[in-house]
């Protein structure tokens, strides 16, 4: 129960932090912000690695493997494409 309360506290506080950071984004950066934050949401990769690596049963290993693939596409593709976009924004200034 205690861990649940702690987790919920963290969840709520993080949402507030998110709102605070992101409220004043210039519209120019809406797309990179979206693809960048999307890449970050691939953090679920951490859980995927554990499922794939602990190999408790065949099925969890398979699920873990698929999750690793999807999450890595999300993470690697997301960060790279964001970087590609942002470089375009940067080079003129």
């Amino acid at each position, binding site marked *: 129960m205690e861990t649940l309360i702690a*987790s919920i506290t*963290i969840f709520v506080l*993080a*949402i507030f932090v998110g709102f605070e*950071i*992101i409220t004043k984004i*210039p*519209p*120019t*950066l*809406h*797309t*990179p*912000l*979206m*693809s*960048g*934050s*999307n*890449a*970050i*949401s*691939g*953090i*679920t*990769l951490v*859980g*995927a*690695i554990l*499922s794939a*690596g*602990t190999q*408790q*049963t065949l*099925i*969890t290993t398979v*699920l*873990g*493997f*698929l*999750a*690793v693939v999807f*999450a*890595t*596409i*999300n993470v690697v*593709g*997301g*960060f*790279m*494409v964001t*970087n*590609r976009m*942002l470089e*375009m*924004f*940067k*080079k*003129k*200034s």
Partner: protein
Amino acid sequence: MADFFLNVGYLLAAVLFIFGLKGLTHPRTAVRGNLLGACGMLLAVGITLTDQHIVSFQVILVGLVVGATIGAVLAIKIQMTAMPELVALFNGFGGIASALVAGAALIESTSGSQLPTTQLTVATAASGLIGAVTFWGSLVAFGKLRGLINENAILFSGQQLLNAALGAIALAISAGVVIDPANGILYWLLVLVASVLGILLVIPIGGADMPVVVALLNSYSGLAAAATGFVLTNNVLIITGSLVGASGLILTQIMCKAMNRSLTNVLFGVLAPTEGGPTADQVYTGRVKSATPEEVALLFDAARRVVIVPGYGMAVSQAQHPVANLAALLKERGIQVEYAIHPVAGRMPGHMNVLLAEADVPYEDLKDMDEINPTMDQVDVALVIGANDVVNPLARTDPSSPIAGMPIIDVDKAKTVVIIKRSLSPGFAGIPNPLFALDNALMLFGDGKKMVLDIIAALKET
């Protein structure tokens, strides 16, 4: 002790994500912000690999290599005009990964003698539900943006009733997962129902409403990660997921506001032309003047201040480079050139900005709607390229119009408006645009890219 270092590492990763997102809020710091985020991810993955519960690295390694290759190829090969569908696709992948992880965690937790905690089961159900909706919703969005399926709203009778019923069934199965977690089928049944729901929720949303959907799915992918964090009691997932959830939600809000519609209206409402509005013939007949590229070039030649208003049509005809060349040419002649960007122009938040950045347009030249509108009456020529509803003055004047109250770029107040468009066909809202029939409006009929190139050619001759 090992746990201690693991958690400190995760905390550090979360801090890096926060700084990374903060960096993304300004063009100057954005590249560094993105790199900080990537470092955070590398750190999180690195320390996870040191976890002592991992018995074999083969599967992980293969997964990482396969995923990284696909991701890198997609990121490098994709054309800037196709960015909305790529972002939609990545959102979906994040969602399904969360749902799969939660499913695996549920199986692991029920394989032992102890029953899983309620926190785990509730979070698992949430992750499965949100993750599957995100995945399939994103795939539909991808298909629509890519033109693989009908981009328009696909509607059938009883749609909302069906969605409500499916939502209720999904919640009921979720309750089942919580009550009887050992029943292995229930979770996947939930994922199945949520998948159908995800498809049905996005199918009725058409073209110009896509920015809202993409932003919302972005938020969902974050929430799915946060839910998975609750499943694994892993703080870095919870923190990161909620950051992304909040970020997507803010973008969704901004998009809705830019259309003067509520989220419910975008998701469930139907944007249909109201009865009794003027027909296209009444608005256009005898009033529309069309011009040639040469005449437009003469107009530009005499102008001191020009504003370019791009829309989705610019993306479709890939006209961003010629548009930037035209602007550069005009600037060389001492003409002040700016771009007016409507928040929902295009198919994703910030779509136009990315395209223009690709064409080397300095971001200082890109002006928000609110910034440009007060000075619109001092503009000599406003060039509308591939935009329609976002410059329709009916939004200001006709309270019964489907776009009534939507903030628009007031190009009608410029001395002359030139509209590059293939025909007089209506935009997404399906209503005629009286702008095209105004005295100070000139239509330049044709493909956006070709017309801009023709104007450039004509300008060079004068």
